[in-house]
């Protein structure tokens, strides 16, 4: 048992904001939720908090612990106390405080509902009557882990992009969107990417704070990169974001190192680049003229790499899990099964991995 000092935010509901200080005798491995419930039961029953399952499956009890977004039920007091010498518990970020540790989750749920979080059937591939849609373990491996998301909003709370730009859908909603985009049962692959491309896909900063905040290893930022990649493959250069990332790759092929002048032109266009002129002039005054690098040694090797690694077929290999995927956690697909569908230019069906059984024979 150790003496654990805890500061808990109190406020909202018309009361002034303050921090109440408590001291508890606890085992070091005690979850913060248990500590809060002990405060409620033994010291101050007026402390408002949201909680239910106490086992990281209902997603109710996310708070900020010393500034970090955490699920109270699986965050132990000891390590955090050892690190910072204090335990400061605050309500989540990016959502208005209702009272004490309880926030109004409307901003979070509103964004979730904006992505149309349900299967949109493909009229060309109706669900088989009376039986399941056949999907190979390799296909399901791409999104097998997506139900791990418990909608706790820890990622939402931690996200600095949301904090600075309310247009952003946020990590959870986009990770959830990924789940539908890669699901072969969903018929709105192109439409979903089209929509999100126009919304806020490119506002993700890739800061990966959501990856660290997530108690279930959903890795939202990595799923967002997957979405950007799929949008780039499917739709191409359209938004400043896609222009920038596709243009960047083309830029590097040219000389091996970044041509900053060309980048501005590619991403911002002529008008945008002209808008940057005053900045460029200021920079030049500081000796920072932007010249073009000479090409790197072995620049021609890049052409070989670009040729070999281009093409759409990676669409199937990119998403999470499996030997064919980035994370390497799910059952491993045999190479034959993971082989890509033929890459044709525009049709959704070809661009997207389809269930192995979802053929004309299966649906006469």
């Amino acid at each position, binding site marked *: 048992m150790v003496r654990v000092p805890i500061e808990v935010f109190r406020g909202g*509901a018309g009361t002034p904001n303050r921090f109440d200080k408590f001291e508890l005798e606890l085992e070091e*491995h005690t979850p913060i939720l248990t500590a809060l419930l002990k405060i*409620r*039961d033994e010291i101050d*029953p*007026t*402390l*408002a*908090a949201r*909680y*239910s*399952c*106490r*086992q*990281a*499956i*209902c*997603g*109710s009890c996310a708070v900020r612990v010393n500034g970090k977004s955490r699920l109270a039920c*699986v965050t132990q007091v000891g390590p955090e106390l050892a690190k910072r010498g204090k335990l400061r518990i605050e309500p989540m970020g990016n959502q208005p405080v*209702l*009272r*004490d540790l*309880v926030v*109004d*989750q409307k901003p979070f*749920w509103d964004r979730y*509902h904006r992505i149309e*979080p*349900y*299967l949109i059937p493909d009229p060309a591939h109706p*669900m088989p009557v*009376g*039986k*399941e*849609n*056949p*999907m*190979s*373990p390799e*296909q*399901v491996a791409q*999104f*097998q*882990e*997506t*139900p*791990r998301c*418990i*909608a706790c909003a820890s990622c939402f709370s931690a996200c600095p992009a949301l904090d600075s730009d309310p247009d952003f859908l946020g990590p959870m909603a986009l990770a959830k969107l990924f*789940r539908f985009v890669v*699901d072969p*049962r*969903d018929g709105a692959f192109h439409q979903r990417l089209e929509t999100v491309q126009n919304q806020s896909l490119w506002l993700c900063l890739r800061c990966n704070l959501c990856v660290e905040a997530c108690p279930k290893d959903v890795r939202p930022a990595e799923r967002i990169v997957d979405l950007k990649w799929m949008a780039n493959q499917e739709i191409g250069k359209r938004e400043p974001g896609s222009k920038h990332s596709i243009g960047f790759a083309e830029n590097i092929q040219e000389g091996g190192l970044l041509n900053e002048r060309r980048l501005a032109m590619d991403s911002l266009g002529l008008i945008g680049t002209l808008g940057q002129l005053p900045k460029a002039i200021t920079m030049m005054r500081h000796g920072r003229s932007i010249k073009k690098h000479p090409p790197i040694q072995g620049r021609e090797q890049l052409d070989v790499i670009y040729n070999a690694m281009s093409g759409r077929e990676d669409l199937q290999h990119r998403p999470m899990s499996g030997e064919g995927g980035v994370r390497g*956690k*799910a*059952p491993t697909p045999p190479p034959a099964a993971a082989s890509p569908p033929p890459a044709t230019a525009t049709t959704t069906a070809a661009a997207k991995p389809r*269930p*192995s*059984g979802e053929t004309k024979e299966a649906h006469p």
Partner: protein
Amino acid sequence: MQKHDVLVVGAGLAGQRAALEAVRAGRSVGVLSKLHPLRSHSAAAQGGINASLGPQDSPKDHIFDTVKGSDYLADQDAVEILCNDAGPTVIEMEHFGTIFNRAPDGSLDRRAFGGASYNRTIFSADRTGLALLQGLYEELSREKRIHVFEEWTAIDIVARQGVVQGVVALDRKSGAIEGFSARAVVVATGPFGRMYPNTTNSHASTGDGTALAYRAGAFLKDMEMVQFHPTCLPGSWILITEGARGEGGILKNGKGERFMTRYAPNKLELASRDVVSRAIATEVKEGRGFPDGTCHLELMHLGKEKITTKLQEIVEFCRNFAGIDPVVEAIPVYPGQHYMMGGVSTNPRAETNITGLYAAGEAACVSVHGANRLGANSLLETLVYGKIAGANAATYAAKAPESGLTQADVDLATKKLHVIWDRKQGESPAKIRQDLQKVMKENVGIYRTPEELLTAQKKVAELKGRYANVYVQDKSTTYNVNLTDALELGYLLDLAECIVAAAILRTESRGAHVRLDFPKRDDANWLKHILVQASPAGPKLSFLPVTVTSYQPMERHY
């Protein structure tokens, strides 16, 4: 005053499924839930959902296994519906978008589970409840016509002359109290295990709807049947899914013996839950447990790959709550309260004795689980009977007269609430709840004696006396957990009283109800349900015959 054809109380799997069915039948539907629907306790179900989709398997086998598992207390007509609808139900959930594990041929993968003759448990790793809840909520999200009232606590179910009128509820966010007039009401508020300290249930599992239905005059059934899950992490009482044994996990006692060979020589670790729980409790009681009073669940031999992919959440539970890595270490386990077979008594149409009042899921008792529920049948029940409840409530509501819920009903419920809330002093709900939990743990456990049960009866009565003086220190109208704690404690006390009364009456041992003074099953006298109804003098007990269609009671062997 809100007004709907059908009002569903509770938004877990049963409630959401009922709402979906009712709205698609063309009725106006409201859903009241004290949690956001995705935070429901359904999410905590781990192992899977049964459906006899395997090539050798059949609904008939599933029916027999369920009836046998129930120790013949289940109503067989209800079990037939459950098992016959299982396949279509699971496939429907797949079509809704639920992400299940797949077999190499692309079909739904199946795992072994306790008391089942074949591998018939469809699963999504070890988070099947969560995957189903998401799949169903996604489908529900299409229905813009459904009005979900999130974070509202029901405080009264109003019935007059045996006909339901509606519900009065408290908005947790604002403190507002509002009437919800409805022609039909579906109770789907889930479990009430929080009367035990050693429970796998969430903090929200306080039986709100079951208790309110009881207060409104509904019969409760099979309340003495309390399931203890064999493998929980002592202390935190986090559940370790039966799927862990289904995937090949074995149990050992302190002497390193695989003791299930003595209790269930054929099914071993996959005997029914009552059998395995008693085996573990007996080993420990007779001195063959580990020094910490546990037995060990070993998964190590399954290999890292299988454990970390199919039992991923279990790995995290063990790490977070017990500091154990199940890939290299055994998991200390002991039985904990897990499931209430009892609940609001319904017939196989999900109807209660109150016209217009329906119930489904763990809040209800059809009874498909009888004296002992088989693993992976509860998720199935929520969906099959949730749908039936929604369909029948919708049909009824289509021709039922307008509800007669009045402002006077709302005022009365408000007044009763304020009696508690406005009290200037008294005892904290936390203290009374802790004492209730102690009473239930010590006296109404796996093994029951008349002395302990009578003690429990006396103590619960005392606690109800203390509850009359319960004090809510928090006077805020915003997210007042102190107030809802007090209300929930009232629900738990009523239901605990029913459990104890029924357990005293049943002088036999059947399924989860084991009386040391009556160690044998007694079909001659006790092949019947106990019903409980509220009366001014306390729980009034009566009987209901068990419906037997195909399977006459036999002795159980696993």
